[in-house]
Every structure is written in C-alpha cells, then in structure tokens.
C-alpha cells in the first residue's frame, strides 16, 4: 500500500516544543498520522497538541512503542539527536532541518548505514502517504491517494508534481523527499528499489535537479532492475552552473551533474524524460495511471 510508512508506523517528533515542531505536529495529526510522542530534552512531562513530551528518545520509545522519528531540531544539535535516536532503536528517521554541516551528515549517514536505519534528508519535506499519514512538512491539500510513486530532491517540486497529478485525477502511493543537500542520508536508487518492490505502486516519477550524480547512478539501477515505468524531470536547464566541487569533484564524478548529462543518462536507461513539469499529466494519461 505504500513504502516506508504504513498503518503500524508510530511517530515521535523531535524538537516538538519548538515553533515549527509544534505547528507541524498539528498538521501531521490533522492528516491522521499516528504521532505518539515528542522529545525535547528538559521539557519532559508536558504535552504539545495533546501529545506527551519526553526528555529522551529511549524513554519515548519505551513509553509509546514509537518506531519512526521526524526531526525539527536546530541544525547544530541534529547529529547528537540523530545518534541518540538510532541508539534507541528507531529504524526510520526523517531529517527536515536545513543547513546541517556536511561533516555531521557524513557521520550520520555512516552510522545509519551501519545500524540498518532508513534515514531521509537533510533538507527534506519528508514522507507522505496520501490518505494515511505523513512525517514532515508536505502540505496535505496537494496530494490524493493513488498508485504513482514520487521521489524528489526538491521539497517544493514534490508538491508541484503531486499537485499536477492530483488535478488530473491521478493519485500517489507514497511521496518521498530525499533531501536537497549535496550529501543525503539515502541515495535515490535505494528509494527506487522500495517502489519497484511495492505492489501498490504502478509507476514512479523522479524529480531531480542539476548537480551531484544521484540521477546518473539511479539510471544504472533503473536500467538493470526496474520493471515499472519511470519518468524524470530535471530542474535547472537555465541555471547558472552550480558548484562542481573543484577539480577533485570533477575528476571523481566525470561528466555527471549537468542538465544534459542527466537527461542523456536517464534516457539511455529507458526513462521518459519530461521537459516541463506539466508534461507529467500527459505521461500519466499515456500509461493510464490512477
């Protein structure tokens, strides 16, 4: 029925007592998400939006049976809180905050991989399963239940694609923001694999952008392992050339990163490349998606 989240997902909100954490807890609850607790060290014993707040992740997990966590923790404290969350046994973590130092992200990613934790972000809008729940900040009004999966590097563009599909009466199985940072906690191909194995997803849209080599690497996975139709859009055709990480980056990545290079790699893998976001409606119609 969905990837990553399902009806046994019990969510805690870290940083729940902050301005954004509490506002987003309200929206998550309103959408039907099972938010079972929140964590802010020093604020244990209080409640936010009727949700009990704990001083530590371990306590929250013990008291509520939580198995997933969404972060609204200030960037400087994310690494510490992330390690705490993994040590408390949580297996699905969504890191919404932006501006987390890359050095911290490298450590987070390494520890999550080692412990078999599925983490998304940083700078992600999170996960939304239409009609069931969401972990993160996606605005619910744009989404509708259906059978198309969306993976996006950009948060706002994931809303755009879902919105265009919903207006065309095409729903989504799960919408996943992988995070907009140069280093993210999970690569695109890992999320594609979940959609390929999900019996309630018929096709997948990849919303990428210039820079990095996620789309190029994913193209290899799609060519080898995906049976479901995949469409892709790459933002940034007219963008001034982004960071290429010096000569070392160019050497390690070869020609990866450019708009043209991404189009070429995706087309070679049999992906239908969309020139403009609105083309996704035609693509969905062509494949009779719902």
């Amino acid at each position, binding site marked *: 029925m969905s990837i990553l989240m399902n009806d046994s997902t019990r969510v805690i909100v870290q940083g729940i007592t902050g301005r954004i954490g509490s506002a987003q807890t309200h929206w998550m609850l309103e959408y039907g998400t099972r938010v079972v607790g929140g964590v802010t060290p020093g604020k244990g014993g209080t409640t936010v939006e009727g949700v009990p707040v704990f001083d530590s992740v371990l306590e929250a997990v013990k008291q509520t049976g939580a198995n997933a966590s969404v972060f609204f923790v200030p960037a400087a404290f994310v690494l510490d809180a992330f390690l705490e969350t993994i040590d408390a046994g949580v297996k699905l973590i969504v890191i919404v905050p932006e501006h987390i130092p890359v*050095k911290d992200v490298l450590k987070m990613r390494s520890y999550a991989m080692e412990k078999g934790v599925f983490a998304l972000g940083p700078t992600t809008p999170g996960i939304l399963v239409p009609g069931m729940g969401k972990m993160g900040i996606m605005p619910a009004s744009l989404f509708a239940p259906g059978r198309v999966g969306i993976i996006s590097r950009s948060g706002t563009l994931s809303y755009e694609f879902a919105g265009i599909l919903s207006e065309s009466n095409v729903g989504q199985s799960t919408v996943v923001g992988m995070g907009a940072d140069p280093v993210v906690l999970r*690569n695109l191909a890992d999320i594609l694999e979940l959609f390929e194995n999900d019996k309630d997803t018929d096709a997948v849209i990849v919303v990428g952008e210039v820079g990095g080599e996620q789309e190029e690497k994913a193209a290899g996975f799609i060519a080898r392992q995906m049976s479901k139709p995949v469409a892709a859009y790459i933002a*940034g055709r007219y963008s001034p050339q982004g960071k290429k*990480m010096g000569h070392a980056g160019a050497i*390690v990545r070869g020609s990866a990163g450019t708009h043209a290079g991404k189009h070429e790699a995706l087309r070679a893998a049999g992906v239908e490349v969309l020139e403009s976001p609105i083309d996704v409606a035609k693509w969905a119609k062509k494949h009779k998606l719902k």
Partner: protein
Amino acid sequence: MRLHEYEALDIFEQNRIPVPRRELVSDMHDALHAAGEIGYPVIIKAQVLVGGRGLAGGIKTASNPDELREAADALFNSEVKGMPVRKALLCQKVDIARELYLGMTVDGYSGKPVIVVSTEGGVLIEETAKTSPEKIAAIHIEPSFGYYPYQARSLLRMLGLEQKLITPWSEIIGQLYHIATRYEALIAEINPLVVLSNGALMAVDAVLEVDDSALSRIRFPLPDRVDRIENPLERRGREIGVTYVDLDGDIGLISSGAGLGMASMDIIGQKMKPANFLETGGGITADLLYRCMELIMMKPDLRGIFINVYGGINPIHEGAKGVIRYIEEHNVKIPVVAKALGNRQEETWEIFKSGGVHVVTEAATEKAVEVLYKLVGPSGKSDTGKPKTRAKRA
C-alpha cells in the same frame, strides 16, 4: 564560502605546508615595493574568486620592475571573468621541475571524503582525468574512522612514484586533510603542488572552500562572508537570508525552494527571461517577503513579477502580507502573479487579491507563467519596442 588564495596560503603556511614568499598588494606602488623585498622574477596573481583565473589573464610573470609595472597596470585596470581586480598576490617565482596535483572534496554519492592525486598537475588536470586515468589516483576516507597516514602512502604508490617523493608528499596530504577537517572544507586543493629544482615540494596555489553551514562553529578566524560577494544585489540577498542570483532578464522571481525556483526559471525562460533567481528557504515571514520584494525591485527594468510559493513549512499567508504591504507602500504598477498553494492557501489568496496580485490556484507553474506572459508579453524588448542587444532570430 570560498577563501581567497592569499587567505588559504596563510592557513596552509600555519599548518606547515611549504608555500612561496609572497605579499598581498593593492596597487602598482605596493607591487614594486614587494617585488624589491622578495626579489625578481615574480608572479603577480589577481585575487578574484573565480576558477580558471590563469587562462583568463589573471596571472602574470615579471622579471624586472618595468615588466612588473606593465603587468600590474594591466591587472589592476582589468576584470578577470567579470570580477574587478582589487587585490593581487605578489609571489616569488620558483624554479619548477615538475607539477603535481592534490585535491580533497566530499563525494556526495558515497557520502565520504575523497582524496585525489595526480602526477600531472596544472590547469589541464580535468582533461588528464579523461585521457590518462592511470595518472590519477583517488581514495575514499571512512567518516567514522578518519584519515590515517598509510592511506596517503598507498595512494601515492598507486601512481608508481619513487619513495623520495612519497615521503614528503604524504606528509602534505596529512596536513591538508588536517586543514580540511578543522576548517570543515568542502574543497581543499593544491594545483599545482610543485617539485622544485632542489627536489622539495611547495604549494604554489591554494583553494579552500569552507562549508557555509559550519561557519558558526569553526574556531579559527575567518573573513566575513557577506563582504566578499561582489554583486550588490547578491550581497543584499545574503544579508536578508535568501539566495539571490542576478540574471539579465526582466521578470522578477520569488520562490520558496531551490528546485521550485530553478523549475520556475526554466519555465519563464521558455518565452521570457528571468531577472533573478530568488529562493527563500523555509523561513518566510511577512518582513522577509517585504524585503524580497524590495530586493527584486532594485532592478530598474522589471516588467513583471512571479511569486511561486508553497505552504509546507512556510506560513505563506504571512508572506503574502509582506508582498502587498510593499506593493501598497511603493505603488507597484507592474503585474504581479502569485501561485501559492498549501497550508492556509485560501487565506493567502484573499490577501494577495486585496493588493491587486493576480492569483493562480492551479498547481502547474506553466499555467501561472502563461498568465504572466499574457500580461507582459515576451522579454528582450525595450520600451520603444526595439530588440535590446540580442539579434532577432530567423
């Protein structure tokens, strides 16, 4: 934040990487004086934050005061890739037997730092990577364990180097890794790392780019990052906390999110030309969008404004209040089109409409841009209807 070469060389020197004798100069008089102290021949290098500086004429050699006068005069009265030359680094010209390459960055896909070395340093290093991959070697560092000296030694052995080069070079790799760690560098690079005629190694260039997200916790003195943005509009963007990129079109853009902003540019670019890229990130308030309006309106020839925002983490109804406050206070006459969807969208639409903003309620940016296009027509024409600079396409 990219540091200037002179700043990076100072940091390298403090961390025991050999660097040339040098002095920062800001005019010809300074340059001649410095060259007198350092001794001819010298190299004068423009301190501008662009890549490919040498090929663009930003580096010149002088073997006597007359040559230096000419070189400095040319340099200080020129732009390198559009950047004015305010400062130059006057360096001792060393005797080079061989040019090597050493660079470090973060490999986003594997999530690990990577160290790259080559026996063929210099401006054509990226070409070498394609044509002679055997002259390049790279090694990834495990973030949880960090760097150990054997990794540098085995990396250099992969290039088939002799031991008398491996020992000093691996020490420099260790020092550069140490710098990259302490300064949270996204790029640390020495190109070229030269072998002098006496066999010693020296870094004659230095690149260091610090992670902006880490600036507040780096315990070493760093220059102010806003100061060094040359473009005044881009500097203003940084001051108010948004990402602004100055472009040469006439349609102002405000978007909440980099991907959405890039897609908006692409769609505007199909029939019109964006005047800027502006991305607010997740911190929209009424005041922020007021200041964004102020910023994009600094360009005098704007013909229309497109606002493309989503209410996920952002309170777009607050943002709308800031936009209409600006429109009312400054009596904005050019068309403003807004697509604003998400949490509290209906309230947002009402606020926008009250200020005369054209509101689009469909998700596709193409449809909103079409509304704007109908109001303003194609870009690239001046007020008199004549094409600006670009020739008409057949």
